[in-house]
């Protein structure tokens, strides 16, 4: 409400601030309105994250999905396993998040009403974990010999589960939110298939040639570990698609645009009784020429065949800014004001869809962001009254 109030304040030609007499009753349509930042493909300095949290608050986003580690780098400084960032960060001195940095982010977010949901994505997307945790990743084989390269986390070793338990015990303490994002996406089976010990394990367990069963075996145990630590979890859609047995209160994160149409997936997930988060049409890293905020704005999250109970299970969505081509030099203009289109879609009523009206409000909001020191890029041709000393 204070944010809304701040946006009602205008300035006249004499420079006097004023506000019209107003009565507003407002509430969000969806409770989970998130933004994903990826600090593994490119490290983001603390100030970039904090500035993003500020602008998220201006847009009434309330969840910061911190995709903190991935294949290319491991910037999270773990107390239990300091070697992970020492060996896995781009630079262990300059491209890490210390325990203090992490607490700063969490508290800064909290004061703005933003939950921090950390994602430690496994068993895929873990190459950077390898150097600091020897024996964790699966060694790939070329015939009978190890090839020297590594694949996903090795699901057949007890040491894996000991490691995972210790790491997540720490992560559960560090991040106060009830939910952790456990990833589970894009697990490449090639390396597992090449490893003779894994082949033997598959036989022993009666999994046949179905490596999805092996993936499920790992995920299952991971979910049990995390549950026993008193946390709930969010997973990417593959976990659901591959038939892993998950707890009823699992949240499934729908992100794929290529295979099953994502609206169909939303229907499937909610029909099976799970809560769903939508991100598929909101991958803001996928830039293109023109006013691409429009496509994001026109998404209707509940546009699938389903009962009212099903629709209730859609708790919201997240705009994602994956980091392959993004770092502090281009993060803010690429995020804003485009992410604002997603923010409105998640907050406002279903009927708020008029494009002309949205354009005007978003363009004005963009100028307001400029006034607040945020380098939000232009929507289209034009100018802001308040720029360059106006």
């Amino acid at each position, binding site marked *: 409400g204070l944010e809304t109030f701040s946006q009602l304040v205008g300035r006249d030609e004499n420079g006097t601030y004023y506000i019209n007499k107003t009565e507003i009753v407002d509430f969000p349509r969806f409770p989970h309105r998130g933004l994903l930042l990826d600090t593994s493909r490119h490290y983001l300095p603390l100030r970039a994250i904090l500035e993003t949290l500020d602008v998220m608050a201006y847009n009434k986003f309330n969840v910061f999905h911190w995709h903190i580690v991935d294949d290319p780098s491991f910037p999270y400084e773990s107390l239990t396993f300091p070697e992970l960032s020492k060996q896995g960060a781009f630079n262990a001195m300059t491209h890490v998040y210390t325990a203090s940095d992490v607490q700063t982010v969490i508290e800064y977010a909290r004061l703005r009403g933003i939950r921090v949901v950390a994602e430690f994505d496994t068993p895929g997307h873990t190459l950077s974990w390898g150097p600091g945790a020897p024996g964790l990743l699966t060694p790939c084989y070329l015939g009978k010999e190890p090839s020297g390269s590594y694949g996903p986390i090795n699901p057949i070793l007890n040491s894996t589960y000991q490691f995972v338990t210790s790491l997540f015990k720490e992560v559960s303490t560090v991040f106060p939110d009830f939910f952790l994002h456990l990833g589970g996406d894009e697990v490449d089976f090639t390396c597992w298939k090449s490893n003779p010990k894994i082949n033997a394990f598959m036989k022993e367990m009666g999994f046949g040639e179905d490596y999805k069963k092996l993936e499920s075996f790992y995920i299952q145990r991971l979910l049990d570990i995390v549950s026993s630590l008193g946390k709930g979890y969010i997973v990417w859609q593959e976990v659901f698609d591959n038939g892993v047995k998950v707890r009823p209160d699992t949240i499934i994160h729908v992100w794929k645009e290529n295979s099953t149409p994502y609206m169909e997936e939303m229907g499937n997930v909610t029909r099976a009784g799970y809560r769903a988060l939508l991100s598929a049409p909101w991958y803001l*890293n996928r*830039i293109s*020429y023109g006013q691409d905020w429009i496509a994001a704005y026109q998404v209707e999250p509940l546009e699938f065949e389903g009962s009212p109970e099903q629709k209730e299970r859609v708790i919201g969505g997240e705009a994602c800014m994956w980091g392959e081509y993004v770092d502090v*030099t281009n993060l803010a*203009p690429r995020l804003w004001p485009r992410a604002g289109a997603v923010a409105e879609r998640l907050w406002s009523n279903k009927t708020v869809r008029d494009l002309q009206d949205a354009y005007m409000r978003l363009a004005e909001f963009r100028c307001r962001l400029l006034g607040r020191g945020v380098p939000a*890029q*232009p929507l*289209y041709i*034009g100018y802001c009254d308040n*720029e360059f000393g106006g």
Partner: protein
Amino acid sequence: HLTVTEPVAILKADEVWGALRGLETFSQLVHEDDYGRFHINASEIDDFPRFAHRGILLDTSRHYLPLKSILTNLDAMAFNKFNVLHWHIVDDQSFPYQSIYFPELSDKGAYSYNHVYTPTDVHLVIEYARLRGIRVIPEFDTPGHTQSWGKGKKDLLTPCYNGEQPTGSFGPVNPILNTTYDFMTKFFKEISSVFPDAYIHLGGDEVDFNCWKSNPEVKKFMKKRGFGFDYAKLESYYIQKILDIVSSYNKRYMVWQEVFDNKAQLKPDTVVEVWMGNNYVHELSSVTGAGFTAILAAPWYLDYISYGQDWKKYYSVEPLKFPGSEEQKKLLIGGEACLWGEFVDATNITPRLWYKLFLSLYFRRRWSSRNVTNLQDAYNRLTNHRCRMLR
């Protein structure tokens, strides 16, 4: 020619501009070790550009660019050995150029008083560029792309008609009135003295004939002149007169390709800028085949962003890959990367330009010899250069 030995390095160049480029190269050879000490390896480098015209187009009409942005980009251009700033200063949407003879043009046509380039601003850009070995070629695009000119000069644009009645909207510059040419004569006198470069870009692209076709006076004029229904002839008639006006001030001109395509009579030293994406290779052949100098922009429209490593496609362009004789190929004197401003302003221009403007590639294509094409090697050098530019 740069020789780095102990205890001195020696840089020799035919002109000061070469020395500037050599100093840039020298600066890029310096590296820092783990202790923070600066080093340079003994080297011997002989370098020269492949193409003489290596330009960047900035559009300050769709979005006003503050001086700071322009100056930062001039610095970045110098780091990448670009030597021409093609300043597309005015267009339909706004007229930020504060004219001395016609102050109403920006008074009425700029977005606001804060979105203007004063004579001092303009001089600053020109001098800042000059000190970096960068020419400033201004573009005052007519007869199309001129909506903003009509705000400050009421009788300049063609009134459009619906039947017998004016609709209230306006089209391109009105080519049939003497007042138009009186205005242009005076206006280009000013431009010729403000901008010292030998060339002025006169535009001439995307002229929409609909408004001219609707105007009864224009139709009468067409008949009188025997142009029939071929409005390209009217366009050429206009352009011709502008070219003559500009020539009389001893300036040479650059034009967009339509002026050549529509068969206007051009002076032999005209530079034709090829920008249309479909079949630009064929256009290059036509332009150089007719004996005109050409510059290439078509494959380098940096405003057309897309997801992924688009620098590769910019890098892979081989400008001389068009059917033509050796003499023809000599007429392609270079090219320009264009960053049109519909979706670009000070908030995103630097990452957008210099991210793709890894044009140092594409640019490098214009500096470097034909043989420098390996993508992997380019990627390595580009990433290093990018980190250098961050510093």
